[in-house]
């Protein structure tokens, strides 16, 4: 009888061990989805490292690439509905309304030491929420000016350091442009959302008052608009109809002395003899002072609804590191974020006309702390100014009246404080 009891007890123990975890469990590999822009660059770079990453970590990665507007919509909807379809997301400051749906990366950053070697101030330029960093930077660009260095040298002009110098030099630049049958300045005025760049790059006033309301600093804004009014006289006569591609084509076709643009959209073409007549003739100017050039800084965020935040972090860290910074720049022309890439001897000698200025502009550039609604309205009003429908004072009054009704997202306020864009 006793023996029977022993057998029963032994069988029960075996059963319990099997049921409560002692048995051999089927291990389910972690799987994550990374949403990003289908640009033929960032997405290709992700595809490029995917296989090696999966092999090394055992984490399955799905890359979901969309055009910009769709990406913004998909990311936002996913977060607002708490679906958790995308674990890792690509975005920027326009996601301010949904920052609370991203996890804090502070612990991961502390443990891994991420951030060492990034361009100066770039960790502060990443988005923060409740004092915690939520984004990791990649693919930066700063609105800037490419100019015809050969013609500047020939005309014995040096690139101006300040906007005052720039305005003084404009008639001389026009002389050179006229002599060469080209426009002095070209800009994509036909892309309405680009209009604010002409304001941001000269404005060093605040965007948010001490009381936490959107507002333009009156005197500084009027001064900037005055300068822009003068600058508009030197623009190609039809600049208000030019798309980004049209404006770029003008410069590449030797029809403009200066282009105000996102450098990353034109640099590769400008160096390609098949696409450009200005190979070896151009340089990127250091953005004159004062002002804060418009920063485009892609960031990687991890969704609060991700079932695999650790795996998501592993992917983010694999995507953004010094090795890939060089590799992605070489292969896809993605703007580097690490200081070491900008000091890479090969690049420094090869891109002397571009790299130092780009690094300088990037350290000065910031994201304006504007919500989508505030920025869209601002861009439309500046469009009216460009068409001559509003005076400088009219722009400031109209913008401030509307902005008074638009709430500042808490996260924007935090970032504005970090980047010095709040009234002191």
């Amino acid at each position, binding site marked *: 009888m006793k023996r029977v009891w022993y057998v029963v007890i032994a069988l029960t123990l075996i059963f319990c061990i099997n049921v409560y975890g002692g048995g051999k469990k089927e291990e389910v590999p972690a799987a994550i989805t990374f949403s990003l822009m289908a640009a033929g660059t960032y997405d290709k770079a992700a595809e490029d490292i995917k296989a090696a990453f999966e092999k090394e970590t055992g984490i399955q990665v799905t890359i979901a690439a969309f055009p910009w507007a769709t990406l913004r919509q998909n990311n936002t909807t996913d977060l607002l509905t708490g679906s958790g379809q995308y674990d890792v997301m690509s975005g920027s400051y326009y996601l301010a309304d949904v920052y609370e749906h991203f996890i804090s990366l502070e612990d991961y950053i502390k443990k891994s030491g991420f951030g060492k070697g990034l361009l100066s101030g770039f960790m502060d330029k990443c988005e923060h929420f409740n004092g915690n960093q939520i984004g990791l930077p990649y693919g930066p660009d700063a609105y800037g000016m490419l100019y015809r260095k050969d013609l500047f040298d020939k005309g014995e002009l040096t690139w101006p350091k300040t906007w005052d110098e720039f305005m003084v030099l404009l008639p001389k630049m026009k002389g050179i442009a006229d002599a060469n049958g080209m426009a002095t300045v070209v800009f994509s005025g036909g892309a*309405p959302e680009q209009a604010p760049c002409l304001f941001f790059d000269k404005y060093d006033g605040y965007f948010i008052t001490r009381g936490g309301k959107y507002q333009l600093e009156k005197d500084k804004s009027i001064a900037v608009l005055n300068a822009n009014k003068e600058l508009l006289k030197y623009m190609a006569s039809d600049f208000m109809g*030019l798309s980004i591609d*049209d404006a770029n084509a003008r410069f590449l076709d030797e029809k403009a002395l200066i282009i105000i643009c996102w450098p990353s959209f034109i640099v590769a073409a400008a160096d390609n003899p098949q696409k450009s007549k200005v190979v070896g003739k151009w340089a990127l100017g250091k953005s004159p002072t004062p002002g804060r050039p418009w920063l485009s800084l892609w960031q990687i965020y991890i969704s609060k609804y991700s079932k695999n935040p650790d795996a998501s972090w592993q992917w983010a860290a694999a995507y953004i590191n010094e090795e890939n910074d060089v590799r992605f720049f070489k292969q896809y022309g993605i703007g580097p974020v690490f200081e070491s890439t900008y000091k890479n001897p090969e690049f420094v000698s090869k891109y002397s006309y571009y790299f130092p200025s780009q690094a300088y502009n990037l350290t000065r550039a910031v994201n304006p702390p504007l919500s989508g*609604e505030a920025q869209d309205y601002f861009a439309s009003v500046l469009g009216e100014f460009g068409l001559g429908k509003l005076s400088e004072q009219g722009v400031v009054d109209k913008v401030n009246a509307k902005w008074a009704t638009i709430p500042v997202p808490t996260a924007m306020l935090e970032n504005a404080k970090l980047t010095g864009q709040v009234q002191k």
Partner: protein
Amino acid sequence: MLLKKNWQEKRTLFTFLLPAILILLVSQAYPILYSLSISFRQWALAESLKPKGFVGFNNYIKAFKDPIFLNAIRISFVFCIVATSFEIILGFIIAYFTVGENFFLRLSRTILILPMVIAPVANGTIWRMMLNSQSGLINQLLRFIGIQGPNWLGAPGSALFSVIAIDIWQWTPFAMVVFLAGFSIIPNELYDAAKVDGAGRLKTLRYIIIPYIIPIGFIVLLFRLVDTLLVIDAIYTTTFGGPGFSTNVITLFIYWQALRYFNISYASATSWILSIFTLLIALSLMRFQKRVQTKMWGA
């Protein structure tokens, strides 16, 4: 006995209709009523996942004080009246000249209908490229004959004109098709009688075709008025509401509020304003149609 049978029949009918009624209630009536309730509450998705408290007519008052919304109403009405007028007049003229059964008329009708079958977004994108001031086909052609083409999409006046023209190009065929169908219901005897009475082409048009076509014209008018008030695709793909606010129509305004800024309650309120406007227009038009018909054909 008969009454009982009738009631039973009705009950059977209702039982068969019930699933469809339930689907309609869930898929249409509920969202409509929900959006109405949201319009009286405060809800920005970015602030909260659920609607907040009751705010009465605040969202509606805000809309009527919002200069961008008022401007959007103005632009929408200009768009609606100009586009609809041209579409009806041109549609009628084209239908009048392409009615008939020979091969060339049939071929022309097929070709003329093509714009209508292109997806509006594709249509807008094609026109954006064609209207490009630098490389667009229109300005290239103008340059070829020595004319410097305007900046079609870059100046306020020409941008509005361009988006209206795109709508006319795409939807005139719709008016044409309906008018063509209308021509086919006019009895041939009437034409024969008119011929016997010595009526020329113009008199036949004035006394036979137009009176017959007017009820159909009202249908086209109703469809196009409502449709042009709801236009968004062509504007989204060509000007995105710019330059400035010059092509910012109500639907685009609502889209921005709802899906770019997530101001759900404000977007609901402005949607209801648009729906009420559209409904009023449709009702007045139907009333007017009835009056015209009574005047022309008697009660």
